[in-house]
């Protein structure tokens, strides 16, 4: 099932092929996260100070790293698009940004729940990691809104690529914000730091499994969303072909 038609304002399109949106890799990603839930809930000890709420760590931080991964892929593919004008890079950037906002939404909902229990507040604006993460959420949301607002394919891809690259510049600031600002509620990193991780063995293992599981889920969702984008473009191309006839 291929087509090679050309939309107004685009470079020649490579032939498209509709593939299953949900294949074995998607279900593998889901299985990894289900396995992580079981490991975190039933086979990881409770934190002696925070109790069960600390287990939110095993989904909150890996989701944050998944969001970094998705937004970074969106920015990288945007650079590739601006360089090569390859529509596959634009489609992959779009898919990554959409998955990125899902992961960011999980970060921004699980974090305040945990924070309310441990810090006594759902949100504090002067904690830069919180505020910059929310800002990144708005930038990615703006990226998706922008894509929906521009009709011309090439113009949409170009403008949104610039926004994706600018948005990804926030990621190092979010990660380093605990070093850069004295006033903060977020703790210093316990794993992603220059020294040895300071988590006990079983907790560290669960965290690393969580990081792997959510990374696989992130890539599986990006892959599924990319394939859905191919399907959408195929439907659009067929419609244009019929209009031309």
């Amino acid at each position, binding site marked *: 099932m291929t087509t090679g038609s050309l939309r107004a304002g685009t470079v020649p399109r490579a032939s498209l092929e509709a593939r299953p949106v949900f294949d074995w890799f998607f279900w593998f990603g889901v299985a990894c996260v289900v396995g992580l839930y079981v490991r975190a809930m039933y086979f990881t000890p409770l934190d002696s100070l925070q*109790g*069960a709420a600390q*287990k939110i760590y095993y989904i909150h931080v890996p989701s944050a790293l998944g969001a970094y991964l998705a937004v970074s892929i969106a920015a990288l593919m945007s650079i590739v698009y601006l360089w090569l004008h390859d529509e596959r890079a634009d489609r992959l950037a779009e898919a990554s940004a959409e998955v990125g906002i899902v992961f960011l939404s999980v970060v921004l*909902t699980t974090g305040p*729940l*945990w924070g309310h229990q441990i810090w006594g507040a759902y949100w504090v604006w002067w904690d830069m990691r919180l505020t910059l993460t929310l800002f990144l959420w708005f930038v990615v949301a703006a990226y998706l809104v922008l894509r929906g607002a521009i009709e011309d394919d090439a113009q949409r891809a170009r403008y949104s690529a610039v926004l994706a690259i600018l948005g990804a510049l926030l990621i190092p600031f979010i990660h380093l914000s605990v070093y850069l600002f004295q006033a903060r509620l977020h703790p210093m990193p316990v794993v992603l730091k220059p020294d040895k991780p300071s988590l006990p063995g079983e907790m560290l293992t669960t965290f690393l499994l969580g990081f792997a599981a959510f990374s696989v889920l992130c890539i599986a969702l990006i892959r599924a969303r990319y394939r*859905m984008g191919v399907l959408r473009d195929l*439907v659009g191309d067929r419609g244009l072909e019929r209009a031309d006839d």
Partner: protein
Amino acid sequence: MIDTTGTYHAGYAVATIVYVGYMISLWSRARRLRRQLDGQNDE
């Protein structure tokens, strides 16, 4: 140790709802597109 089980359950439930909700949204959009494509092929 304080009992924080409610928060822990709420965190896991919220994360599950967001991820599964997105998967359902993907499935629903893909199914609609697949039907449109099949309809175009039939014509």
